[in-house]
């Protein structure tokens, strides 16, 4: 048992951190913003968190709070120009943002250590803290989904024109989604820094983006459980099927194409809809057998 825990503890920690990354990617997609800026936010959070601990002498909680605030602020600022763009152009602009961050981190050697990276970060978080992080974040997003904000996000994603005609201020919600995405990404980034000892600029490039995006697409873009399930499946697959481990990228690519073609809603949302339909059918049957006819009318 002990050896099992020791073997899988690092994997568990990585899964927790990537759940945060997936949530950061999930938030804008849910609100209908085609943002791929997550690795940029994560890198800001990671470097800010590491800098706070190593150079400013702050503790881990203060460092994480600083990282969250800073990345959230950057997300808010990024939202202003993105509001002027649509669809593909938002995607291109956010990819550009990600690349700007990577090349600035290479350039700003006094702050980030440049190509040599930032090393010797103490390990400040363990499995329990990371689990707590995922649970709290999931709870927060679940609550968000139930409030008016979550419903506004859904409306905007499904049809921006209708949402606007219903009096939803699209721009404001896009800003909120990106600021939240930035904050969550920054927090995950600082945890990544406190968990993995060292940071390199090119760690925050396309590879990270693909993993975060694949987790969201795989799990589902609408339910809160989607990104978690997606991350777990994505990171466990190479562990469960050892022969796949060396073909990890190949597998990820094939999975992305297959999921987007055959299961475009993702695992959780598709299953959720199936179960929902079964319940609806049951309710319909019940209402038919109800002699007073007080049943819920079937949709």
């Amino acid at each position, binding site marked *: 048992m002990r050896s099992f825990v020791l073997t899988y503890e690092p994997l568990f920690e990585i899964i927790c951190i990537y759940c945060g990354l997936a949530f950061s990617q999930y938030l804008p*997609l849910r609100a209908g913003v*085609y943002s791929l800026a997550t690795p940029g936010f994560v890198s800001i959070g990671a470097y800010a968190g590491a800098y706070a601990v190593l150079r400013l002498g702050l503790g881990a909680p203060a460092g994480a709070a600083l990282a969250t605030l800073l990345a959230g602020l950057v997300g808010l600022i990024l939202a202003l*120009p993105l509001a*002027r*763009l649509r*669809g*593909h*152009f938002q*995607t*291109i*602009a956010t*990819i*550009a*943002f990600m*690349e*700007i961050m990577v*090349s*600035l981190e*290479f*350039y700003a050697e006094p702050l980030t250590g440049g190509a040599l990276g930032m090393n010797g970060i103490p390990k400040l978080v363990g499995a329990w803290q990371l689990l707590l992080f995922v649970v709290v974040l999931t709870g927060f997003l679940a609550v968000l989904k139930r409030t008016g904000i979550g419903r506004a996000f859904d409306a905007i994603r499904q049809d921006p024109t209708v949402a606007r005609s219903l009096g939803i201020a699209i721009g404001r919600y896009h800003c909120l989604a990106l600021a939240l995405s930035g904050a969550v990404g920054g927090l995950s980034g600082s945890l990544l820094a406190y968990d993995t000892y060292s940071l390199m600029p090119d760690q925050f490039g*396309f590879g990270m983006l*693909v993993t975060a*995006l694949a987790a969201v*697409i795989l799990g589902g873009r609408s339910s809160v459980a989607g990104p978690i399930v997606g991350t777990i499946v994505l990171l466990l697959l190479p562990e469960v099927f050892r022969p796949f481990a060396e*073909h990890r*990228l*190949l597998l*990820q*690519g*094939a*999975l*992305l*194409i297959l999921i*987007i*073609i055959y299961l*475009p809603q993702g695992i959780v949302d598709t299953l959720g809809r199936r179960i929902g339909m079964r319940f609806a059918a049951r309710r319909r049957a019940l209402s038919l057998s109800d002699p007073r006819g007080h049943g819920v009318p079937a949709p």
Partner: protein
Amino acid sequence: MFAQQLLNGVVVGAVYALFSLGLTLVFGVHQILNLAHGAVLMWGAMIGLFIVTFTGLPLPAALALGMVLGGFLSVVLDLVAFQPLRSRQGDHLTTIVSSIGANLILISIAQRITGAQTLSFPFGTFPVRIYSEFGLRISLQQITIVAAVAVMIVALFLYLFRTRMGVEVRAVALNERMAMLLGVNPRFVYFQTFFIAGALAGAAGVILGVAFNAVSYQMGDAVMLQAFVVVVLGGMGSVPGAVCAGLFLGVVQTLTSVFISSQLSDAILFGLLFLLLLVRPTGLFAGLHAEARRV
């Protein structure tokens, strides 16, 4: 010094233009942002390299084969990754995700084949000859690159604006449904645009591979990012825009990396892209849609 760097920039920019033309064509006609386009360039370079190394065929044959196979690779990409999505009215994200997946697959196959090493062409694949004119050092290679790119671009223009097939492609760009009602076979148009895009990317790959004498599985990613800037600068879907923007970008990039900082060159470039998207998201030139109205 300045004029020399200007010349080098034009040569690099010509290759960027060649590569970006395919990206902008597919986007302009089908509204697909093909993020796997860089992988097609990389495979074009690989194919060219393998042909020169293993069969000993001369470079022009390798270029031609690299173009043809690159074209077919791009068509296969369309059939596997994009066509199944077409019947369903998805959002922009579906094709982007699908092309990211295809990009990963193509890159990781190349990584396996090459053992993640950077390969180079055999010595003397292209004769080294340097002319000194007007105080500039111009190599035969640079002249050949610019001439080859110019020929291909002119051929693309003739095809798009002087042939029936080109008219059909532009009709689909304007409105796919209307074109279909008028008897255009959209499948054939998809085949053409993806084949042309792939062939141009394959050519750009072989040229880049020979020019820098380095072929690696990662070479597509870097060029892809430059192509974003070119395509946005020139206007998504604009063919003349891509040519001008490609040349402009090559010059700007060379000059900033020489006179400002090679490390900051990327940040400046993408900062420029960001600003441009804010000020003029449609690019500096009108899209293919506008051109399509001139028959």
